[in-house]
């Protein structure tokens, strides 16, 4: 008989994402992704100065501050018709690249690894054996038996104190965990190492960002950090970049391969059908032609044909969402008219709209980017993907899966990281030639429409603006998590996460670690982090949607 499981919350922010699944004979047969947090940021932007929109959008999310800032700036760049100088483009790319490096390292180690790595099992590991395995995989520092012993002692302290702290409430000992104790120990050691590294990588933003965490250096028409374009700042950036890339190449990629080797069955679980990528990292003023990661759409997993993207084919459906009406609108004409009823998986069940491209649900994010680039013959992507497939001895079809999604994230981290070196050098060359221009003047038109298409760590991000009398008349955001985690559409087609969950094995409905694996592989981010501290109820997050 079918059984319903509700996983709530999926993210730590209470009430933001709730996944409901139906399980029969040990497998998921149906799934509903419900975002229970209203995010009508659009409403607050109306009537404001278009140049200020980014200051608000970068506050919309607790993680993706820069990307929402940049998306808004690009959208207004487009509306006012300004072409930004080369240096501004390079700096924006470098800041975006730094965002990818940071976010993906944190995702793999701190948001996703514990779905695959059993920390408690690491206590049983033999540190000498662990050291040997680690050295065989990669010549990273801190691979000695003493290093692993020290990590084990630290973990044991947490376990013995009865307070696992960050590792509390994991599904430790669950039969779905397949790593030997030594590999668990290596991964746990690198979890700590990644914690240190991410803190340093985050500093890259402060160099050209004037300020981390909320950058101040973006401006419509370019960037405003001209004063930071000096040899000292650039070499500081280069130094942090080198350090981060050493971690990616010697720790992240080898760990991905080592862990994936034990979970090859996940190469046939958690896949979706269609993929959309807006593309990212413009190499010149010509878009989309010059985008480093190409723009494109793939349907029915057909890698032989990548379609061009026509933004007019994007619609947002609200039939199963808590908004007025049943229509499907293009974001340029989008509406945000909330109307909460009740959570009913047969009716309305999410605050997210359901974005569709040409009527189809589309997965966005690392896997979509890597598949589109791979199918279009993007050399660095082809080389990296073929290398990973060969090392894991899995077929190309295994990319359409939870394993493929997690692997794609690591692959693109390396590809983007390597490309960043070229951008840094271009910047240096420009400055040597005396080209220090970072801003292009423009006139704010009385009325205009603009669109900013970006591909950010979590996927395709679009901002749309309508300007009237030099003020914001309408503003719409279609964010990656809405594409991936949105509900069913007017045609009742499930969203990507809903589709991906179907067929997922669930060994123990009370401890559904398998569901977390697939949901977390999308790197869900439901934005609008709320920070109120509530000592009474022992809950840190408290947020009620009224």
């Amino acid at each position, binding site marked *: 008989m079918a059984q319903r499981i509700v996983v709530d919350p999926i993210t*730590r922010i209470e009430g933001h994402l709730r996944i409901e699944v139906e399980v029969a004979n040990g497998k998921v047969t149906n799934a509903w992704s419900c975002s229970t947090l209203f995010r009508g940021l659009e409403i607050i932007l109306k009537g404001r100065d278009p140049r200020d929109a980014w200051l608000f959008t970068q506050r919309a999310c607790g993680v993706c501050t820069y990307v929402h800032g940049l998306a808004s700036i690009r959208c207004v760049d487009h509306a006012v018709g300004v072409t930004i100088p080369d240096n501004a483009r390079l700096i924006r790319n470098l800041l975006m690249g730094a965002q990818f490096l940071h976010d993906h390292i944190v995702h793999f180690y701190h948001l996703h690894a514990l779905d695959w790595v059993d920390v408690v099992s690491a206590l049983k590991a033999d540190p000498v054996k662990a050291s040997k395995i680690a050295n065989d995989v990669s010549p990273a520092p801190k691979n000695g038996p003493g290093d692993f012993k020290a990590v084990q002692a630290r973990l044991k302290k947490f376990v013995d104190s009865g307070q696992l702290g960050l590792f509390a409430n994991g599904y430790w000992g669950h039969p779905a965990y397949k790593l030997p104790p030594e590999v668990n120990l290596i991964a746990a050691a690198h979890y700590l190492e990644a914690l240190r590294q991410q803190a340093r990588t985050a500093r890259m933003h402060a160099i050209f960002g004037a300020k981390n965490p909320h950058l101040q250096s973006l401006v419509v028409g370019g960037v405003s950090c001209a004063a930071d374009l000096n040899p000292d700042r650039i070499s500081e950036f280069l130094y942090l970049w080198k350090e981060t890339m050493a971690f990616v190449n010697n720790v992240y990629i080898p760990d991905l391969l080592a862990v994936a080797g034990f979970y090859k069955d996940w190469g046939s679980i958690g896949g979706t059908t269609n993929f959309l990528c807006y593309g990212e990292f413009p190499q010149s003023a010509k878009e989309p032609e010059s985008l480093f990661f190409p723009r494109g759409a793939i349907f029915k997993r057909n890698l032989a044909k990548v379609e061009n993207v026509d933004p007019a084919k994007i619609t947002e459906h609200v039939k199963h969402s808590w908004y007025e009406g049943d229509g499907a609108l293009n974001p340029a004409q989008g509406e945000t008219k909330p109307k909460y009823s009740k959570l009913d998986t047969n009716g309305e069940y999410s605050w997210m709209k359901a974005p569709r491209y040409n009527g189809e649900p589309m997965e966005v994010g690392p896997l979509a980017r890597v598949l589109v680039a791979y199918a279009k013959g993007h050399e660095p992507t082809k080389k990296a993907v073929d290398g990973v497939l060969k090392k894991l001895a899995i077929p190309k079809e295994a990319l359409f899966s939870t394993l493929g999604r997690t692997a794609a994230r690591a692959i693109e981290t390396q590809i983007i990281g390597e490309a960043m070196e070229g951008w840094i050098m271009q910047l240096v060359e420009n400055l040597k030639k005396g080209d220090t221009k970072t801003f292009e003047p423009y006139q704010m038109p009385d009325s205009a429409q603009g669109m900013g298409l970006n591909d950010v760590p979590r996927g395709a991000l679009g901002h749309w603006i309508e300007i009237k009398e030099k003020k914001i008349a309408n503003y719409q955001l279609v964010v990656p998590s809405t594409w991936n985690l949105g509900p069913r559409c007017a045609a009742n087609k499930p969203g990507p996460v809903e589709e991906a969950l179907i067929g997922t094995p669930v060994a123990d409905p009370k401890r559904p670690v398998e569901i977390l694996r697939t949901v977390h592989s999308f790197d869900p981010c439901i934005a609008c982090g709320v920070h109120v501290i509530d000592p009474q109820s022992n809950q840190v997050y408290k947020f009620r949607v009224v």
Partner: protein
Amino acid sequence: MKPQRILVLGVGNVLLKDEGLGVHLVHRLQASYEFSDNVELLDGGTLGLRLLDPITQADHVIVIDAVQNGAEPGTIHKISAEVLSKKVAFKNSIHQLDLVETLAYAEVLGRRPTCVILGIEPLDIAPWGTSLTPPVAAKVEALEALVLEEIHQAGGSWALKAGESPEACEAKGYVFGDSGGNHRH
């Protein structure tokens, strides 16, 4: 002895009315006062792990935040983070971090600073609004005095900037400014 490094960390979401208290107050302090070299002020927004770097570099962290404790809106709260982390049950998912977890990460790294939380009971944290509600706004000055006292106790000092007063700075608007923005060109 070297003075201890003090981080004044304002957290919260400035788009959600009283939720933005911590960030508003940090901007107000930055605009009105000069602090001694061992004091750093940071607008932490709603970020988690990105705050680990500044947190682990500090010896003492003064967090300013909205604190929901079932009291009258406008009530000032002072909580030691040590007490808070014992009471908080960690939830079993692995995404997004809050302050308490970020402190736990700092502990894992062996670099957990001491921490105190100063805040005000919010009236309204529902979307959307960029200013504080009247009962909370009325207590900002008192909270500011508490924060300054806490900085003093921890070994930091400050002086009012020439020609500035907190009220005058307040009128300028902190996070979004008067025109609402940052037009440098």
